[in-house]
């Protein structure tokens, strides 16, 4: 059981507000990991730190053994860590297809000048759109899509980058039950194909149904971890949620 993403004593404060208070976490490679906890427990800050979006005040961040704490976000993405955003972010004035193609990394200057709609990539992109069931929207601008469609599109974009590890920030946020199931099964499938997942989610049914390993955050640090069965019965977790 190798570790995928690992942090040691991660700290981050905004002004006076402490968001991460010495978080030491390790996620398992090849598994579906979940990161849960009440609002403001520092989950999203954690994501932003490990993906380089914001710089932690102190602490180590390693991915598969190599230190990524000082790396730029794009470098971390290229190292194989893809992420979605809590309130999903797509490129509003670009077509769905371009949204996905934007994740293609041009090989050097020559590659950069290659046509964006290179046959092979377009096929791959359409492949992902098809797999997420939004192929018919390929030429529609993202801003003209529904919320759910935008979430799927964002995921398609991330997957286009062929990340080995995918960080999902509230994939179930504001989507209808039908879509919820689809996302659930999709995650399992992709995991079966060898992708590691780290999921921040409030929907307990989803978390319990899809994750192998759960880490519970409270006040910027983990208070419990283990398989769903264990977490379900952990009163510290209940305490954290119910504020007892």
């Amino acid at each position, binding site marked *: 059981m190798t570790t995928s993403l690992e942090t040691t004593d991660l700290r981050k404060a905004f002004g006076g507000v402490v968001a991460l208070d010495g978080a030491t976490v390790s996620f398992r490679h090849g598994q579906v990991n979940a990161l849960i906890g009440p609002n403001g427990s520092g989950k*999203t*800050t954690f994501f*932003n730190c490990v*993906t380089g*979006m*914001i710089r932690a005040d102190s602490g180590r961040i390693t991915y598969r053994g190599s230190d990524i704490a000082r790396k*730029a*976000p*794009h470098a971390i*993405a*290229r190292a194989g860590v*893809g*992420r979605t*955003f*809590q*309130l999903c*972010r*797509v*490129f*509003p*004035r*670009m077509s769905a297809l*371009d949204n996905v*193609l*934007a*994740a*293609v*990394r*041009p090989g050097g200057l020559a*590659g*950069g*000048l*290659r*046509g*964006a*709609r*290179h046959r092979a990539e377009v096929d791959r992109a359409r492949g992902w759109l098809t797999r997420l069931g939004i192929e018919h929207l390929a*030429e529609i601008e993202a*801003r*003209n*899509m*529904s*919320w759910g469609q*935008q979430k799927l599109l964002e995921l398609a*974009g*991330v997957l286009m*980058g062929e990340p080995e590890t995918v960080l999902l920030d509230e994939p179930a946020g504001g989507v209808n039950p039908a879509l919820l199931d689809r996302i659930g099964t999709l995650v399992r499938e992709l995991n079966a194909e060898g992708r590691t997942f780290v999921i921040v989610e409030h929907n307990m049914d989803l978390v319990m149904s899809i994750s192998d390993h759960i880490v519970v955050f409270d006040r910027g640090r983990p208070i419990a971890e283990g398989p769903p069965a264990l977490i379900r019965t952990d009163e510290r977790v209940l305490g954290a949620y119910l504020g007892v």
Partner: protein
Amino acid sequence: MPNVSKRVLTGVGLVLLAAAAISFPSLAPNPYILSAGIVVVNYAVLATSWNFVGGFTGYISLGHGALAGLGGYATALLVTKAGLPSFVALAVAALLVAALAVPIGLAALRVRGASFVIVSIALVLILLLVFQSWASFTGGSRGLVVPRPFPGLLRPEHHRVFFYLFSGLLALALLAWWLIDRSRFGLGLKAIREDEDKAESLGTPTFAYKLIVFVVSAAFTALAGGLYALWFGDLDPVFQFSILTGSYLVLMALLGGVRNLFGPLAGALIVGIALEYFKGQFGNTPLHLVATGVLLGLVVMFMPDGVLPALGSLVQRFRKAEQGSIREVSASELLAQRKREEVRQ
């Protein structure tokens, strides 16, 4: 496949433009009209060059006037001091300005938006100071005379030649813009314009991208400025390094529409004529400034995508009302998202 037809139409547009450009000198009834035409085409080149940064990345530069002035002075000095042939000097000057754009970009692009604008304005002001003060080298306020590349030509002929040179440069700039527009690099740049963090998280090295395109833009701007210097013949810091020039470029590109190839060109035609009109209209009062300001304000407030796209979407709204309504919703959603997103970063 719609974007095939788009390419075809772009091609058609270019052909028609070429035809217009080639026939203009012979249509122009007198040298003045020809020179006025040169000014407009020069604006078109500058606006298109500006649009490499403004259009692709959404970073607004008010300092491109200075880059043009720099190109002009560099060309002039290479001719007068280093004794290079005019057009060799022009090329070298463009390279020099491009090189200078690297450190400027390093300072301006590392952090987001506001700093870039501030640097772009500061660039104009500091260059003005330097070129004024360093009179021993630049001629300072006494001005710098640029030797004519074609001493033999009479003025009208001279205009004709330069009209073609400017048109050629315009074609070159349009071609380069079109190439980037359809490339992976261009897609990455547009992603930056749409959402820089998101682009970064997808693995786009946004800083490098912004820097490269800024340098390209600077090079083309310098070419336009240098060519202008060769045509105009007299350089003076106060006229070469003016924020107003920069703002005209922004107005042109914005008005025409920064997202499409011909936007800045169209903008240059509209604004070029508008400026003449204002001047005639408001005679010897500075109201032409007010008019320019009002125009810029209106564009920013009501059609940030430019007139042509605005007209386009207007028609479309009539055609598909229901899609229009969806747009409203998701647009406001996006807005809300961005606001909430800020909290977390």
